């Protein structure tokens, strides 16, 4: 590549116009995040992924809730807002897709590039949950028509997948996705003995929630295990202390035949593996 030199004549006059982008909010790898910030984020593990813009809706220690921002205003629907550069500090118009929102880790933020006023954020939040709120001053896009008619569907769907990739890591690590519930019958002595003899069960047991029914059965079975088995099963006891009992779970019929417990253990290991 050649080194930078003078721009051609036709470009000179345009280059004299000032950019609309403001440096006021710009910061590389910011440590503090505020609602209304516009940030560039990347997926966890996405070393080569192109950055994506988000509006920060709210912040909580190591994570935040964000809404997807794009630079193609024509994709905005009537549930999305189109914001001009003067209201964001960015050098370009953006569309905030209010139905594309979710949680991310703050470490996913590469840099902050702009910010919006609190009143604008409040309106965006109203659009998140209500397609037809009253009293909005934000400009919005064209209503989305049914699939097969509106040509924006394929692009919006692909943006949805991209957004899922951004939030996927947080969702998997946190309670946003329901953890599988441990079958209460796994607490019975014969099933429990089989379970703790399988390789890798210790790691997987940390990825499930436990019901009070399982706890009762486990505590009944624990004294019946050998000392070595009891030491191994202690991990389950610790996990029980770490979890709050869920409010709902699938009941297992008490009279259910447990002859096929091998299958049950396999199924559990597959589910959480």
């Amino acid at each position, binding site marked *: 590549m050649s080194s930078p030199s003078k721009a051609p004549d036709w470009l000179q006059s345009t280059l004299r116009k000032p950019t609309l982008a403001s440096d006021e909010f710009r910061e590389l790898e910011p440590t503090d995040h505020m609602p209304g910030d516009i940030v560039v984020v990347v997926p966890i593990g996405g070393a080569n992924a192109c950055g994506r813009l988000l509006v920060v809706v709210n912040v909580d220690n190591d994570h935040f809730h964000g809404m997807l921002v794009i630079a193609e205003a*024509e994709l905005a629907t009537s549930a999305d807002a189109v914001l001009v550069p003067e209201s964001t500090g960015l050098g370009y118009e953006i569309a905030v897709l209010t139905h594309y929102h979710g949680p991310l880790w703050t470490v996913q933020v590469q840099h902050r590039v702009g910010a919006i006023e609190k009143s604008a954020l409040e309106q965006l939040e109203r659009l998140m949950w209500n397609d037809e709120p009253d009293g909005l001053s934000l400009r919005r896009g064209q209503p989305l028509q049914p699939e097969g008619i509106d040509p924006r569907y394929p692009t919006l769907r692909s943006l949805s997948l991209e957004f899922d990739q951004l939030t996927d890591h947080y969702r998997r690590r946190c309670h946003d996705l329901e953890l599988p519930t441990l079958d209460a019958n796994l607490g019975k002595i014969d099933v429990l003995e089989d379970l703790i003899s399988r390789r890798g069960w210790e790691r997987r047991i940390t990825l499930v929630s436990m019901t009070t029914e399982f706890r009762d059965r486990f505590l009944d079975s624990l004294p019946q295990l050998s000392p070595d088995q009891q030491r191994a099963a202690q991990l389950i006891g610790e996990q029980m202390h770490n979890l709050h009992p869920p409010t709902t779970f699938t009941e297992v019929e008490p009279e259910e035949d447990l002859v096929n417990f091998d299958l049950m253990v396999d199924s559990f290991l597959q589910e959480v593996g």
Partner: protein
Amino acid sequence: MSDQELDLLVAEAASQRIGVLWLDELRTACIEVTRRFDPAVYAVAERVWSVGEIDELMQDVTVEQLLDQGQLDYILDVSRSIDDVRRLLRFRVRRELARRRRRTVVDRLLARLTDVLGGDPYEQVPESAPARYRPVGTEVGIDSPAEEGLRRAAAAVRLLPTSQASGERASPVFQSDVLAQVAAQCFRATNSSLSIDDFGRILREALTSWLPEFLELDEGRDWPAEQAGTDIELEDIVSSLMAQVSEEDQIVLLAKLSGVSDTELASELDVSRPTAAKRKIEAFDKLRELMASEAGDIEFSQTSQIAQLLYLRLSQAVDK
């Protein structure tokens, strides 16, 4: 190394915004993208992608997209590798080609609309300069329409059937009967007199919302060939659908397809909002059932043509 190339572009942008490095990248993007686009339609003066035409396109992308629209800043904000920069530049080139196409199409439509507005059932508002038009028998004055009215008009006309983009330069996108509906829908949605400039704004916004279809063309696909006229089979299907959709459902479907909110629909039907929402769901469910029985064996690509044609027939029916 890719990152070094990105670093050089970032440094050039910091010192002079756009210089020879960016122009080199842009020229390459223009050459790559234009291979898939017919110069007879998308070039400015020549019928081939000559060096001069590529230069002209490069200048348009630079001035319109990268600088005036600030997309250079966007590219710099989100790119993490030279590949990101190149992909986004190619996207901008496609977008500029779409803009050229839209501009040509809108100019052509406005010329034809002037003829439509010059005869029945429209008249020029007295003492309006530049000329403003209104349907004969209405009392609207020379006031310009509200922004919301223009937006609603764009939503109302964007579903009217268009002929497919063609290899013929500046071919009309609306056939004559559809163009008459474009005028009718615009007056209805704005409830105001309209100038040619107003129609220009409405059409630009309506056609902008179709840009994604154009931009979705990947580099391995060519622009689809023109489809000649409306398929008679599709006309039959739509006639059959119209015969089976009740009058009230026709009103509901037309309103929702033209972008009317549930609240506005409720007001039009003089019912509560939940009732309007329920009727909307029922009307679309009925339409889906009818579509499945009448057009179940139709190709997926034709369903949007059916929907557009149905929308035209609904507009015409409600006019009567």
